[in-house]
């Protein structure tokens, strides 16, 4: 069963269409990347999935059920702009917000202690929220978004403000959730995080889907016809190569229109060269993002 199925949702505010006929699905046990420039409609899409606002038309289905009050307990949400009750203690904040998700006090406290200990936050459980650093507050918010064992977790910029140690800790926890079969939707501007964590992505711009599918397939579709080469000795002229770009430690060979990387490799090997690295160049997601969004701006 699909964890989330969004079909043809439309949302407009006053006269502006913010999300326009958007459809996508997320499977269980998958980390799904939701990317797009500022104002593309990501947050509005997330809010519709979280049942915070209703779409003007179209449907959102969570685990085969239409969104309703009862499905809300299966959702976990870490909003981009976040905060907690400043004067409340860490443990009380977690228990209160967990109780809104239908947990009883006892099991909320038990699970809170477990997660606090897992994140190394147990010594701070009696502190007030205002005494915590920004990164610590964010860990608490992450705990709040997963404590009730949701089937779908949406994380909006979860790594912003975290130090490398906590970023690593959080990534580990995300992979654990994925392995437990949860569906995770990750929205971030940090493309390297998407490349590291996500199986599939959806890129939206002006409320519409512009890229959707497996990350590897998208990258191969956008690859330029070039290879990256690290070698020993002299390269000389290689037939089928139109341009050589020398980078630090490696060379990028731009291939002629009908030449394949396979042919180039054969030619190099036949010369008896020592090759340390031969890689079909795929552009980083960042570059694809700029190309797709940039094109839309033109």
């Amino acid at each position, binding site marked *: 069963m699909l964890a989330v199925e969004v079909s043809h949702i439309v949302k407009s505010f*006053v006269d502006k269409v913010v999300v326009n006929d958007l459809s996508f699905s997320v499977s269980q046990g998958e980390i799904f990347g939701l990317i797009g420039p500022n104002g593309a409609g990501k947050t509005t899409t997330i809010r519709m999935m979280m049942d915070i*606002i209703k779409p003007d038309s179209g449907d959102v289905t969570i685990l085969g059920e239409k969104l309703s009050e009862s499905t809300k307990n299966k959702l976990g949400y870490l909003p981009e702009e976040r*905060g907690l009750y400043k004067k409340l203690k860490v443990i009380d904040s977690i228990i209160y917000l967990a109780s809104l998700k239908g947990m009883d006090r006892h099991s909320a406290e038990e699970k809170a202690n477990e997660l606090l200990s897992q994140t190394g936050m147990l010594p701070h459980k009696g502190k007030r929220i205002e005494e915590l650093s920004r990164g610590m507050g964010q860990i608490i918010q992450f705990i709040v978004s997963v404590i009730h064992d949701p089937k779908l977790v949406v994380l909006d910029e979860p790594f912003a403000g975290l130090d490398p140690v906590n970023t690593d800790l959080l990534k580990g926890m995300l992979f654990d959730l994925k392995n437990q079969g949860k569906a995770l939707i990750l929205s971030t501007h940090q493309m390297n995080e998407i490349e590291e964590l996500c199986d599939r992505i959806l890129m939206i711009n002006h409320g519409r889907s512009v890229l959707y599918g497996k990350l590897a397939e998208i990258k191969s579709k956008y690859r330029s016809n070039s290879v990256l080469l690290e070698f020993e000795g002299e390269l000389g002229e290689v037939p089928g190569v139109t341009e050589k770009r020398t980078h630090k430690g490696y060379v990028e060979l731009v291939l002629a229109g009908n030449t394949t990387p396979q042919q180039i490799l054969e030619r190099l090997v036949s010369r008896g060269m020592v090759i340390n690295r031969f890689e079909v160049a795929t552009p980083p997601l960042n570059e694809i993002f700029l190309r797709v969004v940039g094109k839309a701006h033109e």
Partner: protein
Amino acid sequence: MTLIVPLIALLLIVVSQLVSGIAMPTVEIATIGYVDELGGFQQYTSQGNITLVRFDTPGDATEALIRGDINEYFVIPPDYISAGVINRYTLEKQLAASPAVTTVINNFLTSNLLAGKVPEATVARIEAPLNLVTTRLTETGAVAPEQGGYGALIIPFVFSILLALSIIFSSTYLLQGLGEEKENRLIEILLSSVSARQLLTGKVLGIGAAGLAQVAVWAISAPLLLNLAYSSIGGFVSTIQLPPNFIVLAVVYFILGYLLFSVISASIGAISSNSREGQQLIGVFTLPLLIPLWFTSLMMFFPGNPVWVFFTIFPLSAPVEVIMRLGVSVIPAWQLVASIVVLVLSIIGILLLTTRIFRTYLLMYGKRPSIGEVLRSLRTG
């Protein structure tokens, strides 16, 4: 705030007892001198706690005043009968002669002027001609169960102030809570857990319960404070009575008034971008709530004026107005019915409007929508 109001009342009682405790002895031991230039003022020199001492000349009286033998003196000039002027001399800086001194001089002059001319009992009546005892009759001519008077005013008056305070505190509290949740974006997490309607209901009921608890603390502390105040206001406490239906109407108007202001606060909390802005906006609505308190004395002396009917039916002022009017007059049944119906309809109307805009504007941060935008979203819902 719950405990501060009773504590302020306690402070007032203690201070007023201290002040009256200091003021009383000076009256008790007073000796007043007088110079009789007209002649014939020899009797009645002992007036309660104050003794009057005669001096032959103003010079003698001044010396006695400076020595401290007397507190003050007055001179009855030869033309007193025609002019009516008495000259009073004192060392103290005062706004005016104290009521006790004025009464003593007044009675001393009256008694001496009338001595031997009319019977003693008549003199006493001339000095205090009126002790008005009013009895209210019903239309059948029987003595009415509710007699009115200041004794009937005190509880409605105190309760109306408490009601206004409680409503203002709870609305402010609700606004602050919503403002804080908007400012720190908790509203997103709350709305992803509960529906906007559940959130609104929970807030109104939760803060309503807190408001009721507050009023309960005040109501329980009131009899204790009244007992403490007994020595200050004396036998007045025994005249205190509750107007009929007071408790029922007090509860009804507390609940309705509270509901009205909490739905107003919720909608203001939704559209304002922070709690400070919200508090400025709610002021527009709490002002009419307090209007009846400004006109307390007018209402006491002109209870039949049609202006009060307007304030009774106008929903924002109704809760306080009705409670206060119960103390000064009888409110016709049709006015009570109209007032309650208008209140209930206003609550339902504002609640319906609020649920339409609540969710949209709770998620809108940073800028307050213009009135036009709010109206448009009310239409589109």
